[in-house]
């Protein structure tokens, strides 16, 4: 069963983390190790990072179908920073993986405890069958 695990940008200042260098390295190493283990266990379907949200656009269709791109995001908006799609045997396994990535190390090596949203992915038929 496929699950999507979503990680939002860290709220503080909405900028890139201003951590000490070795803490940054530890965080990056953790994420790489996580993805590598998922690839080795055969559970990894996708792991993607999104560009920083300063270029994010909210787009609606205008009257004539042309895009209107001046949409404003609500103040409290949480932006997606990245996601993983995993193919696992049970929801419990998905939650366990999410918990692991939630505990990724931050400042001083302390677990960040980020909230990771976990949603099951619909098994859509492949495009050729549509």
């Amino acid at each position, binding site marked *: 069963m496929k699950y999507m695990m979503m990680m939002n940008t860290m709220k503080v200042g909405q900028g*890139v*983390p*201003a951590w*000490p260098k070795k803490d*940054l390295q530890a965080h990056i190493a953790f994420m790489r190790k996580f993805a590598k283990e998922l690839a080795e266990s055969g559970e990894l379907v996708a792991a993607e990072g999104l*560009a920083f949200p*300063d270029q994010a656009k909210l787009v609606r269709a205008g009257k004539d179908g042309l895009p209107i791109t001046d949409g404003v995001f609500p103040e409290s908006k949480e932006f997606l920073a990245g996601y993983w799609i995993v193919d696992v045997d049970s929801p419990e396994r998905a939650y366990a993986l999410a918990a692991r990535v939630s505990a990724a190390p931050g400042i001083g090596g302390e677990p960040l405890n980020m909230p990771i949203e976990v949603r099951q992915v619909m098994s859509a038929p492949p495009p050729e069958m549509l």
Partner: protein
Amino acid sequence: MSAEAGTHSIEHQLRELAPQVLGAVLRRFHDFAAAEDAVQEALIAAVMKWPQEGIPENPRGWLIQVASRRMLDDLRSNIARRRREESAAQEAETLAPAPEMDFLEPYTMDPDDTLILLFMCCHSALTTSSAIALTLRAVGGLTTAEIARAFLVPEATMAQRISRAKQSIKASGVPFRLPTEKEQSERLPAVLHVLYLIFNEGYTSSSGSRVHRVELSSEAIRLTRNVYGLLPENTEVAGLLALMLLTDARREARTNAEGELIPLTKQDRGLWNREEIREGIALLTRALAKGAVGMYQLQAAIAAVHDEAVQAEDTDWPQILALYELLKRMSDNPMVTLNHAVAVAMVHGAAQGLELLKTLDADTRIAGHYRLDAVRAHFLEMLGDKDGAITHYRRAAERTTSTPEQNYLIAQAARLDEVN
């Protein structure tokens, strides 16, 4: 030779033969899209059969025969279909190829077929991504799956891109012949641009994912070498090949085991490929001796100055600065201006470099670009403005879409912050 190495050398041979086979089939049947598909099928058949049956004595003839048979089969079923619809005799005459063709005879290939194909695939009717995909297929001999994997899109998507590219070629009516000298000089820049983009795509890809991906930068070098072989007097082709070699030479030193980006000034030069540097410099010297100086040659010359320095401290920055001044006169590309500012800073100090950045702030083509912030941060650091440098490293990190770059820039800010 191990089975794996054997298959690998078969694949390499097939890629070399692909454009020659396509040229031969096109000369006989004139339908680019169908010929390209038929050649693909012949290549796939070879990959399946040759490892078991052995490579045929005339591999090119074998491929031409298989592809041509496929074309004939298609034509016959088209003829049969049309026979059911209208008068057949005229159709049979115009569509069936001459019976005296014997593909098993040694075929004296017209050496310009690769060039003809390259000019067709890089035609201005195509978008750059279509041209890249079609070039890799028709001239590079890569399979659709290999190209899809290289660009991280589904195979069906890449197949469509290639199919549409072929339709654009058909619609543009470009004939299968070598362009005139005048046409060549007009259209060669597009060809070189596509080859350069393929090289860049391969060069900037993370090393981790290279395991199952075709080496695009090696493919680009191979194709450019072929063009150079066919146009040995063309100094811009030589310049591009030199630039690719001199850049590729540094590939192993660019990233460390953890995938972190290592800037040029900090790379382990012992990891640089001396053979590629030698070849690049030789090509460049020959090209420069001919007099005319173009964009690729200048960029290659700059790369050569870097590659010749035994240590970063030995880099001949005044020479690099002179080359960038020449480059600036030829191009108003803001990236050139940015790189020129870096050279100015290295020769005349960061304060002068910073001054030059001000002109770029007003240039909408580069104003919000992460590199502008990254270079500014570097200059501010050189001038001792730690807080300014930190701010701009972080802003650059927010603006880049490259994960390794982002990590590098955040780390630079962190490095300075620590000392605070």
